């Protein structure tokens, strides 16, 4: 059975009338390394947030880790790691990096339960994996953008997730940090955890079979298997083709206006 099973789902933001994801189906198995590409506003982030139950699915069927997403979104979120896009913590944020990483365990712990030794061990392991031991006692707001990004990755690693989703996780990181963390995710995939990563830059991808999903207009435009070296050229080609179609439609519409 697939870890993620989406069948003809539609999702819309609260208060929004138009569906952002439309009739989308996707099966993701254990240990798959999925890169999600596509132009801006293709619905990539919305797809991740739908899988995590942060956005309600209005139509269609969805199960994640064997749980029905529409009925058990809270439970799904405890099992799914999700590194969000665009966060900023002001310099006065009164939490250390270690405390923030520990917060990744809170969902699993459940209401009112206190962290145990096991939780503290998981936190130390996540901090070690993300390579931020020297930042553990630093206030997160005083860390650089890249350090904050690593802390958020550690926050999700500490969760020991059954699915790991990352939304442009390397945007603030230098090449060596990207390459290193990609290896960490490769290891995670090897243990059976599927990785779903929204990305615009594809350098440093691990040398393993990669499934590339290209989205456009809230739908999956292409879904294919490839290797790390091919990802960029395929996305460039697919997005280029999509943009070309768009450009042609725009030019034609402009011509209609002028006639």
């Amino acid at each position: 059975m697939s870890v993620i099973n989406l069948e003809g789902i539609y999702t819309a933001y609260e208060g929004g009338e138009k569906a952002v994801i439309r009739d989308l189906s996707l099966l993701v198995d254990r240990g798959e390394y999925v890169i999600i590409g596509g132009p801006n506003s293709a619905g990539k982030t919305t797809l991740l947030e739908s899988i995590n139950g942060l956005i309600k699915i209005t139509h269609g069927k969805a199960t994640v880790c064997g749980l029905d997403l529409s009925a058990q979104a809270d439970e799904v979120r405890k099992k799914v790691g999700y590194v969000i896009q665009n966060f900023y913590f002001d310099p006065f944020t009164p939490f250390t990096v270690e405390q923030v990483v520990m917060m990744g365990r809170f969902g699993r712990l459940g209401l009112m339960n206190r962290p145990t030794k096991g939780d503290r061990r998981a936190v130390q392991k996540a901090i070690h994996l993300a390579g931020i031991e020297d930042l553990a006692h630093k206030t997160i707001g005083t860390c650089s953008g890249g350090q904050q990004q690593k802390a958020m990755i550690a926050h999700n690693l500490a969760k020991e997730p059954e699915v790991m989703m990352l939304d442009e996780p390397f945007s603030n990181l230098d090449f060596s940090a990207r390459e290193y963390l990609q290896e960490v995710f490769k290891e995670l995939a090897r243990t059976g955890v599927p990785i779903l990563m929204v990305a615009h830059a594809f350098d440093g991808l691990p040398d393993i079979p990669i499934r590339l999903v290209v989205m456009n207009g809230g739908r999956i435009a292409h879904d294919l298997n490839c290797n790390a070296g091919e990802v960029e050229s395929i996305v460039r080609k697919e997005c280029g083709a999509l943009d070309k179609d768009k450009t042609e439609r725009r030019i034609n519409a402009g011509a209609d206006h002028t006639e």
Partner: protein
Amino acid sequence: MLEPIIQNNVVCHALEAMIFASIACSILGVIISRMNLSSIGFTMSHAAFAGAAVGMFLGGNPQISAIAFSMAVAALIGPISDKAKMAADATLAVLFAMSMAVAIFLISYMEYMGHGLSASSLLFGDVISLYREEIYALAAVCILTIIFILVFYKEITALMFNMKIAEAAGIRVKLVYYVLLFIIALSVALSLNIVGGLLIFVLLVTPASIAGQFCFNVKSMFLVAPLAALLVSAFGVWAGFEYTLPVAPLVALLLTGVFALSVVLSFKRRINTKMH
């Protein structure tokens, strides 16, 4: 509770009420200011003010209607923003204006009808005519607030860090958030008689802002904010009765003065400025 120490019953009741109100409000204020919920707290406190005016106008219990009003406003923010397709801040501004209009309309009408004294206590508070039951209720809400913090400490800190990240981590954000709003409504409504609708917000926000100038972590903020509020309130009550000054505005002014001083003295701010 403080009768063995303070012989004068009026002063004793005023001090007790002020201590409980300032502890409850300042603890909640730490959460409100960190979660950027100041506008919600502001609107809820004025909704409680309007609710109390409605209760008084209808001859019912002003505190119950104050709680109901502020809860209703908290519950309406989301749906109104969605339906009217506008930002939550604009919705809050509309609800705040509505609350103030309802309160001022009813207070003016009651003054016209000869109920001016009780109505004006809603505006400016009335520490000298508190009932024993009101002080017990404030003590209960103060204990409830402390229990809420102790029981949900890890969830509250995660919400204070970032609500979206907390939700993505699998924390039951909505449950904790609505309990928080309920306790804010309760604290605000019960404290209304002491400091009044126009000044209640000072108790919510200023002690937390003072603590924010010195504290590097949340635990110390939860200790420093109520301590600052308690000391300033106690001093305000003593000075108010000693020099025949209006207690609630005096406490508000003193808290603002301490805040200004803390901004000048803040070593935390200086450290952060150096680091950036």
